[in-house]
């Protein structure tokens, strides 16, 4: 017996190697796992086996298609129809007097990493937008993500301004931000949240970037949120992996966990999102969010803030729309961050930014166990298929690339799998509350490592038994439904009796709707 790993000097590391469901050899998808295969000493097949494995594990390096393009699974729901930007903006009450939908990016000419359809201030013309684009990194101009239904303050996202060492200014950009500020008729300043630590934002000037200075943007107030870059996050997750595999630290668990900084990063991301949400919710001012390019930390902040503000996104379909909108359509570089089918696992572009977002969502769902329609399994399933390449949902870096590859025609959507089995992903405690803003507590006292995700492969940590409170609740739900049915039957029987001597039919028929109103 010999270990494949030892023999061929190759490491199969969970976070860097993605195996996918292959049609010949069924290899499960993996994350945070180390798989080692021992092969029998029977000679020649060992090398073949390894080659087959690497070829299919890293199809892009071997000019092979990703499995999603070969997958012939059929579902009774088409997940590609879940997100329709026009409908989603209409749900938000857009367009309105102040915001319009523009098709300026229809052929991805204005910005190749943005979606085709954008919502911009009514008072900004398409020419204005083109001029602003020249001053924003990768032409990612400020566009609307979300509008408050009552106070009409907005969350706007973009990339950093191209200020550079010389401190360049751009009148069009300055005017554009002022137009945004004025859309909700607030006299107050526009709040800009720069996700980066202050020092990084300053350093970015050296490479042509920067931030909105006080002198140039009189009507804006800038805050740095101190969230670190993709490299820091990648290293942090690596450290998490080290403390949970192969052995879970026992007596020094807490200090080991602290030394990974993972939960500290989660805390900062949540804190930033809370600030964005609070600013908008209190109606004090509209908010502009950016980091460097506006596709990593910016996506985290806008989507988490929207999750806190808008209960629609806490439903299964709402969450799918949120991911589809803020992450997929706005060009979070999934292909680069995950490295689908690519063998270069040391690639510095890789980073668990989306995983970190899902972790934040999980932390919120732990703190508010009745506020989300979906359960933990839903979040884990999303992460599993973030890596599996079974679905086209997370393939490629941006909408233009996906369109070129005809992803929606040639692959299946992850939402097809989920929406055709919705019951499996539902949280029984879910209570729909329309205008409730959720503010999680971003304190280490409440944040915890997501054991059921990060340590699920370690046999020493047993998968948690179903939560007894939840189990009991589900039993009671079933009992309630049974009783309601019995009551209905009894009522039918008695009203049949009563209807004979033609007495008042009001009694029983009034009762039932009353019972139903609770549910």
């Amino acid at each position, binding site marked *: 017996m010999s270990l494949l790993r030892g023999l061929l000097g190759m490491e199969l590391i969970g976070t860097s190697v993605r195996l996918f469901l292959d049609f010949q050899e069924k290899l499960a998808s993996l994350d945070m796992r180390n798989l080692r295969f021992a092969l029998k000493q029977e000679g020649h097949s060992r090398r073949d086996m390894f080659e087959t494995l690497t070829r299919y594990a890293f199809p892009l390096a071997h000019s092979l298609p990703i499995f999603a393009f070969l997958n012939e699974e059929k579902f009774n729901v088409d997940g590609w129809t879940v997100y329709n930007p026009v409908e989603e903006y209409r749900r938000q009450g857009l367009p309105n007097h102040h915001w319009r939908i523009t098709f300026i990016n229809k052929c991805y000419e204005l910005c190749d990493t943005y979606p085709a359809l954008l919502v911009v201030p009514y008072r900004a013309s398409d020419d204005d937008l083109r001029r602003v684009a020249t001053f924003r990194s990768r032409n990612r101009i400020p566009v609307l993500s979300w509008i408050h239904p009552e106070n009409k303050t907005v969350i706007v996202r973009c990339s950093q301004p191209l200020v550079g060492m010389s401190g360049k200014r751009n009148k069009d950009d300055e005017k554009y931000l002022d137009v945004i500020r004025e859309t909700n008729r607030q006299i107050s300043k526009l709040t800009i949240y720069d996700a980066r630590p202050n020092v990084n934002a300053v350093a970015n000037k050296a490479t042509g970037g920067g931030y909105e200075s006080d002198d140039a943007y009189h009507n804006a107030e800038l805050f740095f949120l101190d969230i670190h870059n993709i490299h820091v996050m990648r290293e942090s997750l690596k450290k998490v992996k080290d403390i949970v595999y192969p052995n879970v630290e026992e007596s020094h668990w807490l200090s080991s966990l602290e030394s990974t900084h993972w939960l500290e990063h989660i805390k900062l991301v949540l804190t930033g999102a809370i600030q964005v949400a609070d600013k908008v919710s209190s109606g004090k001012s509209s908010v502009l969010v950016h980091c460097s390019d506006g596709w990593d930390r910016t996506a985290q902040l806008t989507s988490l803030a929207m999750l806190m503000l808008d209960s629609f996104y806490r439903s299964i379909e709402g969450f799918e729309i949120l991911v589809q909108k803020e992450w997929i359509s706005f060009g979070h570089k999934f292909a680069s961050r995950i490295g689908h089918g690519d063998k270069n696992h040391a690639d510095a572009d890789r980073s668990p930014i989306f995983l970190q977002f899902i972790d934040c969502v999980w932390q919120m769902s732990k703190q508010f166990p009745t506020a989300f329609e979906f359960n933990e399994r839903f979040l884990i399933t999303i992460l599993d298929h973030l890596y599996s390449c079974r679905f086209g949902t997370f393939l490629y870096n941006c909408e233009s690339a996906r369109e070129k590859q005809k992803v929606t025609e040639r692959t299946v959507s992850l939402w097809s799998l989920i929406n055709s089995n919705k019951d499996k992903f539902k949280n029984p405690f879910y209570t729909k509350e329309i205008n409730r803003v959720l503010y999680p*507590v971003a304190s280490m006292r409440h944040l915890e490592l997501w054991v059921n995700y990060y340590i699920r492969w370690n046999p020493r940590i047993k998968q948690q038994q179903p939560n007894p409170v939840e189990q009991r609740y589900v039993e009671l739900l079933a009992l309630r439904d049974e009783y309601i049915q019995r009551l209905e039957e009894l009522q039918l029987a008695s009203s049949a009796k009563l209807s004979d001597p033609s007495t008042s039919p009001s009694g029983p028929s009034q009762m039932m709707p009353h019972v139903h109103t609770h549910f």
Partner: protein
Amino acid sequence: MLGKGVVGGGGGTKAPKPSFVSYVRPEEIHTNEKEVTEKEVTLHLLPGEQLLCEASTVLKYVQEDSCQRGIYGKLVCTDFKIAFLGDDESALDNDETQFKNKVIGENDITLHCVDQIYGVFDEKKKPLFGQLKKYPEKLIIHCKDLRVFHFGLRYTKEEEVKRIVSGIIHHTQAPKLLKRLFLFSYASAAQNNTATDPKNHTVMFDTLKDWCWELERTKGNVKYKAVSVNEGYKVGERLPAFFVVPTPLPEEDVRCFQGRGIPIWCWSCHNGCALLKMSALPKEQDDGLLQVQKSFLDGIYKTIHRPPYEIVKTEDLSSNFLSLQDIQTAYSKFKQLFLIDNSTEFWDTDIKWFSLLESSSWLDIIRRCLKKAIEITECLEAQNMNVLLLEENASDLCCLLSSLVQVMMDPHCRTRVGFQSLVQKEWIMGGHCFLDRCNHLRQSDKEEHQRQLSLPLTQSKSSPKRGFFREETDHLIKNLLGRRISKLINSSDELQDNFREFYESWHSKPTDYHGLLLPHIEGPEIKVWAQRYLRWIPEAQILGGGRVATMSKLLEMMEEVEHLQEKIDERHHSQGALLAEAPPLLRSSARLSSLFPFALLQRHSSKPVLPTSGWKALGDEDDLAKREDEFVDLGDV
């Protein structure tokens, strides 16, 4: 609301740090002074309770949205409690007040609950003891239940400050005579109301009948008998009047060493194995006396070492387990993490929270207690062995482990009445020295003993008997237990394997909540009991969230199902009759905070709490932090 003013800074990461002490602006006081006297809340005294001293125009600080607000009122001290009489309670709505403690109000601190008193002099916090030369402008009281009270005395008359501060210090710190404890004056003044529902009856274990009932319940009566040899405490004061021993044990043996060296029954397992405890024999230097002890123990072990008794495994808790000192030290450090004076302190400690927790080693101690209890459970359940717990007085760690084992193994102990009976059996009758361990009489400050709910944690004076005790155990094992037990010695690896196998196989099966229950003990699974420890900290409060959110959904659903059931029953009995309206749902879960029902809603607005101190240095990751996100391929997209 009277005397209310917002003081201190606002939230946000950029906000200035709120200063340690904040005060209401003086001009606000004069305008409110009249109201204070008019709206004063009356002091509720229990029967037998006496007012000792009081002070008016005291300001109680309330932490709210990262500012401090002050409420004027009267601070009083009785022979039972310190109480603040303000008008704060009017702010609470009915939903919350229906869960109020009727004896000890929100602003009451019983004298025995006071842990530490601090005075603030010129913005500096100092612990207060004994006679004071100078009186503080602010009083901070840390309670044993982890509440923290801040009372401003700046606007109180000097005479009253002196009286109340020295009164509080005296009544919470001076040594007390047992007969002066408040409960005695309360008991003589209050109506004695002992009528109890026999169905919900806590077994007190103060009669022979109660022990017989427990023996019968656990089917221990085959091999064990209840004895009344200590009735009237003729044999020893540390022993309960009635207890259970192996059937063949002669009653005279109990008298030999005042109950020491006697295996006392705690509980019997369904397979007949029993959990026993034994306190050590007195330490003797004299060879002759040692010989007497040895032959006495020989006799005892012969009794319990032949069939029908199972093999005995001895657990020497005095030498092979946590020391009481370890537990006391850990708890002192641990509780300090929750006695938080203000928001700034909360967020400053938040960054290093995990390492602070770890350095207290409290959670590690909890894990070791649970692990030991699982090991004992494994012996009883899987190895079919009796387990004998040995401890100097058999009244500290014995109480802890025997009750933990019973909670894991006996579903009856997980009912309310069963748990109360368990506490009565193992802790009260088991002779746990609550008076010393909690230091109710305040014998001396250094010997402060602590108790922590079902884990009574104690500090013992360094034990001169420990060496002897260890020898004693070796002696017992080698000489007396002989061949039958020898395989257990020096085989800790084997024990560990047995433990692992037992633990892992249990956790790999679906749980039967009415059977054996084993807790998870892996590092990530042992967590802070948030509802107890964080309950008074406003920053840690999750509005409308936490476990209470699911619990109240469950309660609502139970109510609904019950109501439907009633309706169906009524239909069966009287068809077509008009039914009663559905009762209003218990409460709206969105309104409750995660700390419910311990703490009432302390934040009145829905503003989020924001950390006020941010990032700690990354250390070795600094290089990475300076890198740009897309440093490889600018412009590849």
